[in-house]
């Protein structure tokens, strides 16, 4: 059998390859380049192999930041997802002025630039001029996010919930709106309780959008930088130093480009891995159900 080989076909994929190369591969490779070398300036580089990676993986400072990051992400997911569902369930279902008004109000926090969100809460939480801080202080709480780690965490978590629950609400609301009326009518005729309606109609129908919401919130919160940086700058001490804050400190503050590059790659892989696990579980459970 004769097989025709046509090498010209490679040209067909060239534009795509070039695009991916410039948008992803080449920038990533520069990071890889830094991560395996050491430099003392003057554009002199020395090969160090995997040394930086070993250093980062053994670094207590990175471990602590990772643990803080995981705790932070878990807390905000545990608050934002149920709260988002709850708010979406209580939004007006019928189209009209009231529904539109609710949607606009809900979407508002999503439209504010991240550093502005940080500034808003930084001022909001101040005990001298901030409404939140002043009130908490007046009713007897010892609240000061610049000195107390718990207060700092509380502020950052509340800020993130305020900023991002809207996203979960909007996605869930879209999911809920897509449920035909007949389902609710059938459930009424079947004498289903409110809880059964949620459990057997609304939750299954929301599953798709909910998983997207969780994935988005996971990725964004795992990479959070701007808002806590503006509010606490990672403090008090290192109490709110999350992974990306730590990374920026290492790269720009200390100018340790090698370790920072290794850190970035590991960071990237961790997010990729967890997202992949989420995605697989999602798709898998969907398949299992339809069997």
């Amino acid at each position, binding site marked *: 059998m004769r097989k025709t080989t046509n090498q010209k076909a490679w040209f067909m994929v060239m534009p795509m390859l070039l695009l991916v190369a410039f948008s992803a591969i080449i920038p990533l490779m520069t990071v890889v380049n830094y991560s395996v070398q050491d430099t003392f300036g003057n554009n002199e580089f020395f090969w160090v192999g995997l040394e930086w990676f070993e250093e980062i993986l053994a670094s207590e400072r990175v471990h602590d930041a990772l643990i803080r990051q995981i705790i932070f992400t878990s807390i905000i997911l545990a608050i934002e997802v149920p709260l988002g569902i709850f708010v979406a369930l209580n939004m007006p279902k019928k189209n009209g002025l009231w529904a539109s008004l609710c949607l606009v109000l809900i979407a508002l926090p999503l439209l504010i630039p991240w550093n502005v969100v940080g500034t808003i809460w930084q001022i909001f939480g101040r005990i001298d001029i901030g409404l939140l801080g002043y009130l908490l202080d007046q009713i007897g709480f010892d609240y000061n996010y610049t000195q107390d780690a718990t207060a700092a965490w509380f502020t950052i978590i509340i800020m993130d919930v305020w900023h991002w629950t809207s996203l979960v609400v909007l996605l869930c609301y879209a999911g809920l709106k897509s449920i*035909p009326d*007949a*389902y609710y*009518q*059938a459930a*009424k*005729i*079947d*004498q*289903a*309780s409110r809880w*059964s309606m949620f459990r*057997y*109609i609304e939750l*299954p*129908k929301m599953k798709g959008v909910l998983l997207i919401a969780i994935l988005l919130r996971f990725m964004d919160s795992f990479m959070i930088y701007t808002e806590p940086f503006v509010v606490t700058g990672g403090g008090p001490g290192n109490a709110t130093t999350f992974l990306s804050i730590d990374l920026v400190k290492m790269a720009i503050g200390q100018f340790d480009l090698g370790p920072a590059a290794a850190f970035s790659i590991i960071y990237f892989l961790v997010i990729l891995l967890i997202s992949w696990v989420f995605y697989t579980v999602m798709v898998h459970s969907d398949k299992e*159900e*339809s*069997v």
Partner: protein
Amino acid sequence: MAKITLSGLAHSYLKNPENEDDYALKTINHVWEDGAAYALLGPSGCGKTTLLNIISGLLKPSSGQVLFDTQDVTERLPSERNIAQVFQFPVVYDTMSVYDNLAFPLKNRKLSPDYIESRVQEIARIIEVEEILTKKAKGLSADIKQKISLGRGLVREDVNAILFDEPLTVIDPHMKWQLRTQLKVLHQKLGHTMIYVTHDQTEALTFADKVVVMSMGEVVQIGTPQELFEKPEHTFVGYFIGSPGMNILKTQVNGNKAIIGNHEIPLHKDYKNLSGKLELGIRPEYVSLTDNPDDLPITINRIEDVGHYKIIRASHQGEEINIISKEESGISENMRFARFDLDHTNIYANNWLVTP
């Protein structure tokens, strides 16, 4: 099971309806006999779903009452009325198994597990889903899902009526026949009062003992399929039922003569002098093509061969006349006249049938 009485029922979706046109459902008085199969037939937007939702309690009528036997249920919620409803799109609980779907209405009513078990098995046998009871409802085909939603209605022994809202819309054509036949068998076996909403005349005529034809929010005729065909009480019924529908020709009536254009047709009955908009209605099946110049002269536009009969599309002074002629009867060039079977010729005044 119960007899359902609609008394002075009317509904408007507007808050303050002012005239007749504001009503999606105009005043209706009707009794649905216990255990009968009814079809509610009409084009989209004629108010049939509105009427169905009032009976099931999903909608509260603007005025009038709904009675189940002697009880007024107008104010009751759907769950308190003991009715079952099958919707246009199959409603199943995706995450539950077929068994749990069928058991769901009983579990919600807190019945004993033993009873639920036996009842679900019984219904599964009737709707023929025994083999897939343990399967998840999600991946099933539309016709089986529709059977399950019917099963959820049948599973309760005390259902007063089963209401169907165009249940075969999303079913494949070859399954439609099967399901329709099964429904008919189920009705004979279980004897529930069934009300079936559809815009498909074949579905309505094959399913129901009695067909309720609706148009523009109004019930225009209630009758057996035979009655709807032979004696349409309203020109809409004549036109809507049958394929092609009834021929409707403008006419003048003088005693026992109908005058179409300048042609006179002797009638079997004496109508005296009628006034208003007068029309003569005759089914294409009762018109024959002749070569007799005493009959109504027509122009033949087109002949359609539909297999075992031919449809002749003709006209008389611009008004359309369809004729159904048996295949074997030959058609010759001289046949340019139409004869009406006078036993099946109806006269309508302002769209309503006149009985002399």
